[in-house]
């Protein structure tokens, strides 16, 4: 299949998307830990437009933007299990929700204090952590719950009673959302707020467990404690 390199960093959920996709295809690759500060020559040359990770280098040709990388991996490794569903309508639904998830994150990019490449939480998760006062906190929590309830409904529709958004095995939408589970758990631990609450989003809770336990995921999903330590080192703690 040629030489495969993935330029990335272990805490990044976007890099994780690419890793999971490569694992699903049992593709051999070299993980190149990007220095970020300063950005490596390789990164600047292979992603001159955005200068961001992840970058997939396949036979030295760069592919950028995590969801584009995932779809590329699906196209370029046709013999492995399919990441996208086979039916065009199901593919459209998966792409729609993947775009929805990414939109929610992109909106608040300017809010981020640390390197926006590495830490991109759901904006609402950040809002909870930073909410000043009980009222603001309650509002922020409501926003998160409503976003996840939408995703819970999406899960019920897409999974059609099966284990993952994509059916019996992990696919595009599972990857698009699942990559954030490490950070979601870290945020839950730090803020004490239950986001994946079995009372409000029971299907997502079950899905999250199955996703994290999957063989393509468990070796590469960052550990909660490591993420918390990482965030502590990177972020200013929110003022009390």
């Amino acid at each position, binding site marked *: 299949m040629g030489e495969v390199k993935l330029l990335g960093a272990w805490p990044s959920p976007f890099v994780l998307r690419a890793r999971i996709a490569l694992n699903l295809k049992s593709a051999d690759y070299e993980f190149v830990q990007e220095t970020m500060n300063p950005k490596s020559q390789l990164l600047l040359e292979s992603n001159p437009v955005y200068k961001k990770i992840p970058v997939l280098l396949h036979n030295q040709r760069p592919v950028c933007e995590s969801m*584009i990388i995932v779809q590329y991996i699906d196209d370029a490794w046709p013999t492995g299990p399919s990441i996208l569903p086979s039916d065009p309508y199901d593919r459209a639904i998966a792409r729609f929700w993947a775009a929805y998830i990414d939109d929610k994150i992109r909106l608040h990019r300017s809010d981020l204090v640390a390197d926006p490449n590495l830490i991109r939480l759901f904006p609402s998760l950040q809002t909870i952590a930073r909410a000043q006062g009980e009222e603001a906190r309650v509002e922020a929590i409501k926003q998160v719950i409503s976003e996840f309830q939408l995703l819970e409904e999406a899960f019920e529709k897409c999974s059609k009673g099966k284990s993952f958004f994509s059916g019996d095995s992990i696919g595009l939408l599972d990857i698009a959302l699942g990559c954030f589970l490490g950070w979601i758990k870290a945020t839950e631990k730090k803020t004490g707020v239950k986001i994946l609450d079995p009372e409000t989003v029971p299907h997502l809770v079950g899905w999250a467990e199955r996703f994290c336990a999957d063989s393509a995921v468990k070796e590469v999903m960052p550990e909660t404690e490591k993420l918390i330590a990482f965030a502590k080192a990177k972020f200013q703690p929110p003022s009390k």
Partner: protein
Amino acid sequence: MAKEEVKVFRTWSSPFPLRVIWALKLKGIEHEYCYEDLSNKSPLLLEYNPIHKKVPVLVHNGRPIVESIVILEYIDETWKENPILPEDPYDRAMARFMAKFSDEKCLPAVWLVFTTQGKEQEEAIAPALECLKTLEGWLVGKKYFNGETLGFADIVLAWIANVLGVCEEVMALKMVTEERFPLLCAWIENLSNAPVINTTWPPRDKLLVKYHALREARVGSVGPK
């Protein structure tokens, strides 16, 4: 072959539904339009696109698909004639990258120039020109972003050939000049002459009025904020 229901929810002017229409026309797929007034959205639109409440919506045999780029991929996968995405996985990735760049970087950069004036506008011009420079670079050795024939990336970027010119006229500010971006100018010319594209451009005089009003609403008599 049974007649399929193919409906496109659109407005008279928005460039996003036009993408869908061009793809359908390129493939020779019969379709109907449902015109929307976005200040008074139809119950059907709200039912088909409850989350974003926007156009375009493609309804195919009763099932709605939303978001123009998602719709384009759906169209290409459903109707195989005259493919708009390249076959090679790397070229496909590049086409998708160009599409993302168009909507996430170029459009907002140009929009910022269009909706500001004075110092704010001056500062907005350089990033917009950077975006256009990137596009220029992608056209080296090619007639279209897709290669010899127009495709997915061209369809997504076509707003540059249509809306951008109108905005430039309204602002009396030209960013895409022959001098700066000869390849982009040539591409605009080629695209504008493509039969599928030029028969569906919204009327320029109406667009000028609309965009004039849009700009006035942002920077007009209210003055700088």
